[in-house]
């Protein structure tokens, strides 16, 4: 290979055009496929969210009927959870950077990787088809709780089948990543020389493999229940609706960690680069990912404290819920300790990463409110819950996604974006976010129930305030993506290492060539050595 051909970017190698993209098994191209499809879904779901907020701008009917509102919050949840937050970081940044960060040329099963994207797309299309066929869009909320999901005439069957297919995509991606990390690490890349993003993907991969099938079978049973009245969840036949909740949350709580672990991993890459300092407590961060994956699998029933569990089991689940906060807090302390006496460079990526820490702390700590039994009864099914999980899912995973996008954008596209504009768009995004979701925490504590299309007079001021917040938030989102979209086509040429990073992706040209490494590197030291000569 000559030097000129080695530097050819990955998207100019092989087949060009649309067909070239959708048939390529290059992990980097697949990552871009995911990125484009996910950001599209994300923007649609943001629009649905804004419509819901506008409905709450006045009392009574504003722009839609109650049934439309029910369909909107279901869709918003299904799209955000299954099509953006859940697959987001692993599928986009995991695909692109996992092989590079461990010094591999691709994932272990490149064709399976492409197949996962097709499963993702098929699942998404099936879910979209459910809106226009059968009895119309599902109106159950994204959790599809029985008995309502069995009784409703809307097209739950197809939407649930879509989610089932998406599960396949998730399992196959997890399986691919775990195998990749076991088999394809470069020579000398021992487990504890891996950067922290691969560590978090490893923990995530196991949760994807071991938890997703449970929701798969639960959704299949729900479909069987609707089609054949099998009776497992139907008390009229002898079944038990609470069993559905158990099975659903046995997956869907660990799924929360599928969402947050890669986000934490990405933050662990960004913070050291812009603090120009080795990460503090590498081993603790790596192991806390595994601890979160393990403990997080044992806390599902904290979603069901008001569903009639025994006093003993709610105590156990409450205790476990408090315990899972420990490894999360370990990570936060380590990030903050990394910043301490670092030489901090406040780039756009760093700004989003620091916002992540701030917002995730609020999200995590309000989670402890929910885990406390007495408080839980008061705030169950209120806006407090909605505010809490938006702080974790959007403030956590969403902001980490934005941070990672700004951090790795020059590497992925070979172009630079306007730092200044990225920081300007951060302002309405961060401001609007906190007005909207902190407002929800307050409203929820006052007693505003979730999933109501209308509200009582005492909540009116609050609703107006948070609706205005949602406008700032969506303005910020549009400005941020607009800036990056413009840069993807019109931005200047990016250098190989614009941020002074020390992980392997920054040793490659921007964008990397199709085979990543011309010669596979040999690793001789732990990651994040910013001053190798002054290291102890």
């Amino acid at each position, binding site marked *: 290979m000559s030097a000129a051909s080695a530097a050819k970017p990955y998207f100019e*190698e092989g087949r060009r055009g649309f067909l070239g993209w959708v048939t390529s098994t290059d992990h980097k191209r697949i990552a871009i496929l995911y990125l484009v499809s996910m950001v599209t879904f994300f923007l649609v779901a943001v629009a649905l969210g804004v419509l819901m907020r506008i409905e709450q701008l006045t009392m009574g009917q504003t722009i839609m009927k109650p049934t439309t509102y029910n369909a909107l919050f279901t869709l918003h949840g299904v799209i955000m959870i299954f099509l953006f937050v859940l697959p987001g970081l692993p599928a986009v940044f995991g695909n692109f950077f996992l092989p590079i960060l461990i010094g591999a040329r691709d994932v272990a099963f490149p064709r399976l990787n492409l197949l996962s994207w097709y499963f993702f797309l098929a699942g998404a299309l099936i879910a979209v088809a459910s809106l226009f066929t059968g009895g119309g869009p599902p109106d159950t909320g994204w959790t599809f709780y029985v008995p309502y999901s069995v009784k409703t005439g809307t097209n739950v069957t197809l939407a649930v089948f879509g989610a089932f297919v998406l599960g396949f995509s998730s399992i196959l991606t997890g399986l691919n990543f775990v195998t990749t990390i076991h*088999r394809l690490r470069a020579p000398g890349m021992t487990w504890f020389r891996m950067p922290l993003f691969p560590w978090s993907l490893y923990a995530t991969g196991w949760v994807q493999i071991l938890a997703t099938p449970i929701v798969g079978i639960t959704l299949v*049973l729900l479909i069987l229940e609707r089609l054949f*009245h099998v009776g497992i969840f139907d008390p009229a036949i*002898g079944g038990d609706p609470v069993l559905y909740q158990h099975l659903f949350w046995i997956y869907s709580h660990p799924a929360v960690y599928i969402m947050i672990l890669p986000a934490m991993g990405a933050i662990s890459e960004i913070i050291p680069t812009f603090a120009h300092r080795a990460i503090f407590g590498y081993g603790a961060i790596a192991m806390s990912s595994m601890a979160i994956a393990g403990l997080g699998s044992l806390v599902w029933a904290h979603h069901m404290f008001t569903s009639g569990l025994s006093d003993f089991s709610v105590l156990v689940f409450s205790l476990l819920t408090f315990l899972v906060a420990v490894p999360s807090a370990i990570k936060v302390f380590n990030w903050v300790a990394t910043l301490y006496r670092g030489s901090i460079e406040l780039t756009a990526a760093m700004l989003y990463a620091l916002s992540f820490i701030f917002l995730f702390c609020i999200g995590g700590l309000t989670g402890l409110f929910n885990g406390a039994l007495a408080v839980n009864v008061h705030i169950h099914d209120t806006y407090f819950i909605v505010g809490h999980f938006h702080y974790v899912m959007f403030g956590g995973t969403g902001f980490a996604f934005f941070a990672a996008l700004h951090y790795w954008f020059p590497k992925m596209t070979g172009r630079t974006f306007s730092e200044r504009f990225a920081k300007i768009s951060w302002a309405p995004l961060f401001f609007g976010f906190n007005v909207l979701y902190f407002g929800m925490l307050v409203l929820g504590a006052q007693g505003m129930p979730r999933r109501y299309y209308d509200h009582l007079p005492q909540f009116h001021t609050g609703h107006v305030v948070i609706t205005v917040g949602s406008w700032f938030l969506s303005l910020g989102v549009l400005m941020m993506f607009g800036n990056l979209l413009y840069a993807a086509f019109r931005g200047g040429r990016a250098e190989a290492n614009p941020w002074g990073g020390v992980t392997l992706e920054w040793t490659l040209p921007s964008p990397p060539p199709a085979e990543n490494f011309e010669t596979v590197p040999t690793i001789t030291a732990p990651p994040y050595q910013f001053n190798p000569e002054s290291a102890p």
Partner: protein
Amino acid sequence: MTSHAEYHKDYQGAKIGMWLFLFSELILFGGLFIAYSAFRLRYPHEFHEASGELNAALGVANTVVLLTSSLTMALSISALQQARKRHASAFLSATIGLGALFLVNKFFEWSAKIHHGLYPGSAHLMEREPGQRLFFGLYYSMTGLHGLHVVAGVTLLSIMLVLLVRDRITPDDFVKLENSGLYWHLVDVIWIFLLPLFYLAA
């Protein structure tokens, strides 16, 4: 880029991938086993009675069929390892045949039950006690899902047979056949748990 997949032929990696997939399959069935245990604890007596209505002889016969097919599967792989291709494809064909036989038996078993009005939502079943309705609901769900896996397995093994005949699977490169065999054994193992839970619970 088509050469991409070829240049790391990593057998151990392929096997790790397959085992991870099998874990997820086990957990898929795990959800059903949880449901079964929950309801069996709630309705032990009714499960006991309903189980008596299943044809235990047919269930045992099918178990023998499936166990034999696992044996022929293993024999096929070991024949290939010894470069006896004709034996390998004969044993593989036998495995496919036994898988199909299992499905035929299952078909007759199900249609007999449905003929007697024993199926979810049927008027006859709705007159019975809740535990019996659930027993049959679970019976159809679990053996149905298992049946789908047998169909998938037979399809997979048929593809492997074609690859074997066309020398795409060779004594030096048979990890595909080995992984398909692993899948087939999993289908077998799950049935071994279904047999006592449904047919022998009486």
